[in-house]
C-alpha cells in the first residue's frame, strides 16, 4: 500500500485542473527496458512515469510481476510555435530505452516535434562540509573561514533524479511518429509523416535526412510514413511502413539518402475484400522487427501480419485481430476510430505476438500452435492472481452466454499500447489512463 500513497502524492503534484488532468493522464506509450527491470510509460500530459520491478524474494514467487513507481518527471511541456502560430502538444508519442552501460539509465522520449535524451540515476549520498559554502549552498564570508575542512559524503535517502541530457529539436516539420535506437548504440532515427532523420546521440544541432518522401508538389501527396524501426542487429538496415500498407527496407550503405529501397513488402489486394475503406484499413499503424531480426510484424486496422525478410510478395502469417468490425467500417470511419493507431509487440522468444483492440480487449496469437486468445484489461473482471477468462465476441447468429455482441463493444475503450517483458511472460497493457501488468500463472 505504501507505493500507492506514494504515487498518489506524485500524481497530485502534477494535477492542474480537473478536466485537464483526466485528458493528460491518458497513457500514450509503454516500454520495458532491455532487462525488463524498468517499465516506462508516457502520457498525454507530457509526463514519464518509470516503474521498477519489485525485488524477487524466494518465499514470494507470485510477486515477481510487481512494479513500483521509481521515478516520475515532466518530459515535455506544451509549447507555442510563434512562427506557425500553433500549439505543440506535450503528449509523449514514443519512449525508447538505451542499453544500460553504467549505473544510470538513459531513455529517449519524443512528442510531435522534439526528441529528448533523459538520464535517470540514483543518489543515496550527498557531500557535506564544503569550505567556501554552507549547507544551503550559500557562499560563506571569507572572513569567517578559519579552518580547512575535508568534505565528506554522507548517506541520505535514496533519490532518483531524471535530468535532460540532450534536446534534439527543430528537425521535424511534421509529426514524429517513431524513434528507434540503432544497434550501434551511437545513433538513432526519428520519423515523421514525410521524413526520417538520423541522429548521433552526441550531436543535437544537426541530423542526417535519410528518407524524404515529400513530393515537390504537395498536391501529389497520397502516402505518408506511419512507422519506422532499425534492424535489431544490422546497424545499416531499417524499415519504414506507409499509409498504403507497404513496408520498405533500406540499406544505409547504399546511399546517404535512402530514397531507393532495398526491399519492398506488399501484399496484393484481395479483390473480394475491396471497398472504399480498403486503403484506410490497410494503412500500417506499427512495424516491429522480431528479436531475431528475421521477421517484421506489421499492424493494420483489422490484422497483424508477420513478414519474412526473405519474402516480399506476401506476409508469411496473417492474424485477424477483430474481423467482425469489417461490417462496421462506415461508422468506424464516421467516428474516426478507423484512424486509431494500434501497436503490436513480440514476446521474448518471437513465438507469440500481441496487439490491442476495442472494449479494453487485447489479443495474443501463438505462431506455432496458431491458437489465439482475447483477454480483457479490466479491474472488475480480473482479480489479482485469478486467471483471466478468455473473452469472445459474438459474430452474427445467436449470442451465447459470456459472449459479447459486436454492437455492445465500447469503442471509446481502446488498447493501443502494450509491451512485453524482453525475456519473461510479463506484459504491460495501457487501457486509457490505466496501466495493467499481467503475468503468466505459475501453478
Amino acid at each position, binding site marked *: 500500500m505504501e507505493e500507492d500513497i506514494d504515487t498518489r502524492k506524485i500524481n497530485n503534484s502534477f494535477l492542474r485542473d480537473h478536466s485537464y488532468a483526466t485528458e493528460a493522464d491518458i497513457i500514450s506509450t509503454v516500454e520495458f527496458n532491455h532487462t525488463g527491470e524498468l517499465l516506462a510509460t508516457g502520457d498525454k500530459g507530457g509526463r514519464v512515469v518509470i516503474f521498477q520491478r519489485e525485488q524477487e524474494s524466494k518465499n514470494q514467487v507470485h510477486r515477481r*510481476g510487481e512494479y513500483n513507481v521509481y521515478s516520475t518527471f515532466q518530459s515535455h511541456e506544451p509549447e507555442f510555435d510563434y512562427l506557425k502560430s500553433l500549439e505543440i502538444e506535450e503528449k509523449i508519442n514514443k519512449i525508447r530505452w538505451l542499453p544500460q552501460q553504467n549505473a544510470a539509465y538513459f531513455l529517449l522520449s519524443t512528442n510531435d516535434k522534439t526528441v529528448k535524451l533523459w538520464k535517470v540515476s540514483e543518489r543515496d549520498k550527498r557531500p557535506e562540509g564544503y569550505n567556501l559554502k554552507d549547507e544551503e549552498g550559500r557562499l560563506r564570508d571569507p572572513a569567517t573561514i578559519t579552518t580547512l575542512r575535508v568534505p565528506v559524503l554522507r548517506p541520505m535517502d535514496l533519490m532518483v533524479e531524471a535530468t535532460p541530457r540532450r534536446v534534439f529539436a527543430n528537425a521535424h*516539420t511534421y509529426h514524429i511518429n517513431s524513434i528507434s535506437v540503432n544497434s550501434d548504440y551511437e545513433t538513432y532515427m526519428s520519423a515523421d509523416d514525410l521524413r526520417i532523420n538520423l541522429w548521433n546521440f552526441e550531436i543535437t544541432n544537426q541530423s542526417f535526412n535519410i528518407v524524404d518522401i515529400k513530393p515537390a508538389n504537395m*498536391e501529389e501527396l*497520397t502516402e505518408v510514413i506511419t512507422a519506422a524501426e532499425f534492424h535489431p542487429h544490422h546497424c545499416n538496415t531499417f524499415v519504414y511502413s506507409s499509409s498504403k500498407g507497404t513496408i520498405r527496407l533500406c540499406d544505409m550503405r547504399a546511399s546517404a539518402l535512402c530514397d531507393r529501397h532495398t526491399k519492398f513488402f506488399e501484399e496484393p489486394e484481395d479483390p473480394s*475484400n475491396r471497398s472504399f475503406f480498403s486503403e484506410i484499413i490497410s494503412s500500417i499503424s506499427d512495424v516491429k522487427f522480431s528479436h531475431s531480426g528475421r521477421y517484421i510484424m506489421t499492424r493494420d486496422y483489422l490484422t497483424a501480419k508477420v513478414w519474412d525478410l526473405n519474402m516480399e510478395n506476401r506476409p508469411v502469417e496473417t492474424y485477424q485481430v477483430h474481423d467482425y468490425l469489417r461490417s462496421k467500417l462506415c*461508422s*468506424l470511419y464516421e467516428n474516426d476510430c478507423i484512424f486509431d493507431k494500434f501497436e503490436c509487440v513480440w514476446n521474448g522468444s518471437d513465438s507469440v505476438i500481441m496487439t490491442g483492440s476495442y472494449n479494453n480487449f487485447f489479443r495474443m496469437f501463438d505462431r506455432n500452435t496458431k491458437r489465439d486468445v482475447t483477454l480483457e484489461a479490466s479491474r472488475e473482471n480480473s482479480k489479482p492472481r485469478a486467471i483471466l477468462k478468455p473473452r469472445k465476441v459474438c459474430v452474427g447468429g445467436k449470442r451465447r452466454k459470456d459472449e459479447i455482441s459486436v454492437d455492445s463493444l465500447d469503442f471509446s475503450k481502446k488498447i493501443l499500447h502494450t509491451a512485453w517483458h524482453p525475456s519473461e511472460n510479463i506484459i504491460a497493457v495501457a487501457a486509457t489512463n490505466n496501466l495493467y*501488468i499481467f503475468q*503468466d500463472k505459475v501453478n
Partner: protein
Amino acid sequence: MLAKWCLSWFPQDRMFARGLKRKCGDQEEGVEGFGTVPSYSLQRQSLLDMSLVKLQLCHMLVEPNLCRSVLIANTVRQIQEEMSQDGVWHGMAPQSVERAPIDRLVSTEILCRTVRGSEGEHPTSELEDSPLQSSASELPIVGSAQGQRNPQSSLWEMDNPQENRGSLQKSLDQIFETLENKNSSSVEELFSDVDSSYYDLDTVLTGMMTGTKSSLCNGLESFTAAAPPPSSTCKSDLAELDHVVEILVET
C-alpha cells in the same frame, strides 16, 4: 502454447475515473424490416459528404493529422473517380474526364497548405517552386469562419467552376455555409448531429450491397463485396438516411 494469464499488479488509477458514455447501436435493436433500400448512389453521396466535412474540418486546423487527411483525401478521390465513371460527377464536364487526372478533383494541397507554407527546412527549394507558390497563394483561408464566400472554387480545380457547378458543389456550399454560420465551438455540435444519424450507415450500406447489386453500374465492384449477408440487424431505413443527407445537403 499461450500461457494462462493473471493480473499481476494494478497500479492505482492514474486519474479520477470518469464514466464514459457508451455509444453503441442500442437503438438498432428495435427497428427491423427490409422495406425500401436506399440507392447505392445516395449512400455513396453520403459517404462523400461525410468525407468532405472531415476534410473541411482538417482544413480548419493549423496542423492537421497528415496521415488521416491523406487517407480521407484518397477516399474522396476514389469515390469521385467512381462517380465520374458512372457519369454522376456533375462537377466535371464529360469531355474533360479523360484529360484531367483524378487527383485534380481534390487536391491534397488544401490539407497541407499551412504546413507547406510554414516549411522552414529548405527555404531555397521552396522558393523555386514558383508555380506552386502562386497556386498556394490563391488558396483561401477558410480557417477564420467568416468572409470568404467562395472557397470552393479554388478548393476544387475545375475547368469551368461557374458553369459546371453540380449538385456536389451545391452541397459543398451548404456545408461551408453551415460551418461558417457556426462558430468553431459549435462545429462539434454540428457533428454530434451527424454522428448519431451516420451511425446507421454501415448497416444500411452493408445491407444495400447485397440488395441492389444487380441494378448498379460497373463502378460498384470496387465497393465492398465483403459485406456480410443481410441479417436481421440490418436496418435500411430510407427516412433515416434522408435525414442524414438533409443535414449536409438541404434536400
